[in-house]
């Protein structure tokens, strides 16, 4: 035995228990490679100044994302402007040959989600201060399609910057800009002492909803998480498991939990596992969030509402970077594949107070009868 032999023995000792590369490594790498494929990016002929002020590395992808949303404009449903882009119109100038993010049949959604679960489970996140707030800023853009009877009004496009300060422990009021509103609204928190109902269920006595941003006690198994996601807004008995409505609810609530709330790693992993239980899930590679970041998304088709919902993940970390909805079939003059709503999660962090942003700036909270009174 010589020094090299000793070194080989040491290498054997230091090596992995399994001789094969982990499943999630292969899936994740495959997803990243598929993101790299040429030919799936939109042709962009728009006004390049739209990306002014962005880091150089994000310029091209930002242009692609701008065009992704602007394909709505190319379909003559109006002009979308991205929040913060000084209102520059990019609809008419952009030529969207095709939307990015066609379903990639080479990737299995179940495998992708299970790989995500394994990865997330292996990377525990820090427990946030219970008295703090989970701050999320998301840029949103969408178009409200005019019905056939209202064609004279035309389609209405909109953009919005959503901000949310969700109480970590749910005992304090949370604040957020709901829907397309620019105004902050308040979700009254339930102090522990007044809470008599289970988490996420309405407490009639306290006239409040206990919805902690950090769901410390979230289920950690697939089955329990499925029940939990279904119960989140609909309460017990939220429909028949497997029905279209049930599937849609689970997908949406899972998406919301991953994007705006925080949960221990086992619970987040359980969300991925729960989503893998939904039928006919698809993987979309090269999906672009509204701010230009690209990732891999999972898509859920809700035939009844003619919508494909996608959650876009960072292909490495499985953090949610955005969501979007596209049309499955032509609707009110818009063709299949039209992006009718898109969102990018720009920032997510824990802050000490509502209204306080991670950069130290503040947003004034509106007065209510609970605050601002002497």
């Amino acid at each position, binding site marked *: 035995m*010589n020094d090299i032999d000793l070194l*080989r023995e040491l290498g054997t*000792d230091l090596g992995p228990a399994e*001789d094969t590369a982990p499943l999630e490594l292969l899936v994740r790498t495959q997803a990243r490679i598929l993101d790299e494929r040429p030919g799936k990016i939109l042709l962009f002929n728009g006004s390049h100044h739209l990306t002014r002020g962005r880091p150089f590395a994000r310029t091209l992808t930002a242009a692609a994302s701008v065009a992704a949303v602007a394909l709505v404009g190319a379909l003559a449903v109006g002009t979308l402007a991205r929040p913060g882009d000084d209102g520059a119109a990019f609809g008419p100038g952009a030529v969207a040959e095709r939307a990015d993010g066609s379903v990639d049949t080479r990737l299995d959604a179940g495998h992708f989600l299970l790989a995500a679960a394994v990865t997330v489970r292996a990377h525990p996140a820090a427990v946030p201060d219970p008295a703090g707030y989970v701050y999320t800023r998301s840029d949103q853009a969408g178009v409200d399609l005019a019905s056939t009877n209202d064609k004279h009004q035309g389609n209405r496009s909109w953009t919005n910057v959503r901000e949310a300060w969700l109480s970590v422990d749910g005992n304090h009021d949370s604040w957020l800009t709901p829907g397309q509103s620019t105004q902050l609204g308040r979700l009254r928190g339930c102090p522990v002492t007044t809470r008599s109902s289970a988490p996420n269920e309405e407490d009639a006595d306290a006239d409040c909803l206990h919805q902690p941003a950090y769901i410390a006690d979230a289920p950690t198994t697939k089955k329990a998480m499925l029940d939990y996601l279904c119960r989140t807004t609909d309460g017990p008995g939220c429909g028949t498991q497997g029905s279209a409505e049930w599937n849609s609810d689970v997908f949406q609530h899972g998406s919301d939990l991953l994007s705006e709330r925080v949960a221990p790693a086992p619970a987040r992993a359980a969300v991925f596992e729960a989503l893998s239980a939904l039928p006919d899930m698809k993987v979309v590679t090269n999906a672009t969030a509204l701010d230009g970041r690209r990732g891999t998304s999972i898509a859920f088709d809700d035939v009844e509402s003619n919508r494909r919902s996608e959650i876009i993940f960072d292909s490495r970390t499985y953090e949610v970077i955005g969501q979007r909805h596209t049309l499955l079939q032509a609707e009110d003059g818009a063709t299949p594949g039209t992006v009718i709503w898109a969102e990018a999660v720009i920032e997510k962090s824990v802050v000490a107070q509502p209204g306080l942003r991670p950069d130290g700036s503040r947003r004034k909270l509106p007065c209510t009868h609970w605050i601002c009174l002497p």
Partner: protein
Amino acid sequence: MTSTDGGARVLRPRKPPQGDLDTGPPPTAGDAALVAASLQEPELFSLVYERHANAMYRFAYRRLGPDLAQDAVSDAILEAFRFRHRYDQERADARPWLLGILTHQISQHRRAERSRYRTLSRAAASADVQDTHLDPVAGQVTAQTVRAPLAAALRQLADRDRDVLLLVAWADLSYQEVAHALAIPVGTVRSRLNRARRMLRQALPDLHLLLDDEESR
């Protein structure tokens, strides 16, 4: 389409079109042919790295540990995909090429790698078994009994010497393959390897007891 057999080869590319028009490489094609074909059919590249992912992972795991190993391997494969047009078609086996790229990715985590060796050497030094460099039962030098000085020596090696040494010892590359992997002359491989081994021996004084090491006699 995707395999559902639960094995390591989870993701498979689409089958190439069958019949007279099928000019794609057969499944048993060599790495060079697959890399070349992947320039037109990018998904074929997965066949290349699936062949070598296990070896890459083991190599990175030994040097960086489980978490960083996954990142390094994934980054390396992505880098290889991006630069596959530069692949030397004379090289039938892509393993040295991929391990060379992986070594470069590992170099992004030098501090973590050294820290891993330091932790290992401290842990091993504090273990009772480290009272002697000789295995008390067999009276032989083993990796177990010299873990601490071995890990400490690895940590103290120059980065480029360690790269060569570990490509030989932990990735089983020949001198020629190491030269190809790191894009350096074979003579440089030899000199770096000699320097690294000399350092190892200095850290392992009991090695002179070994009879089958021609260089330590």
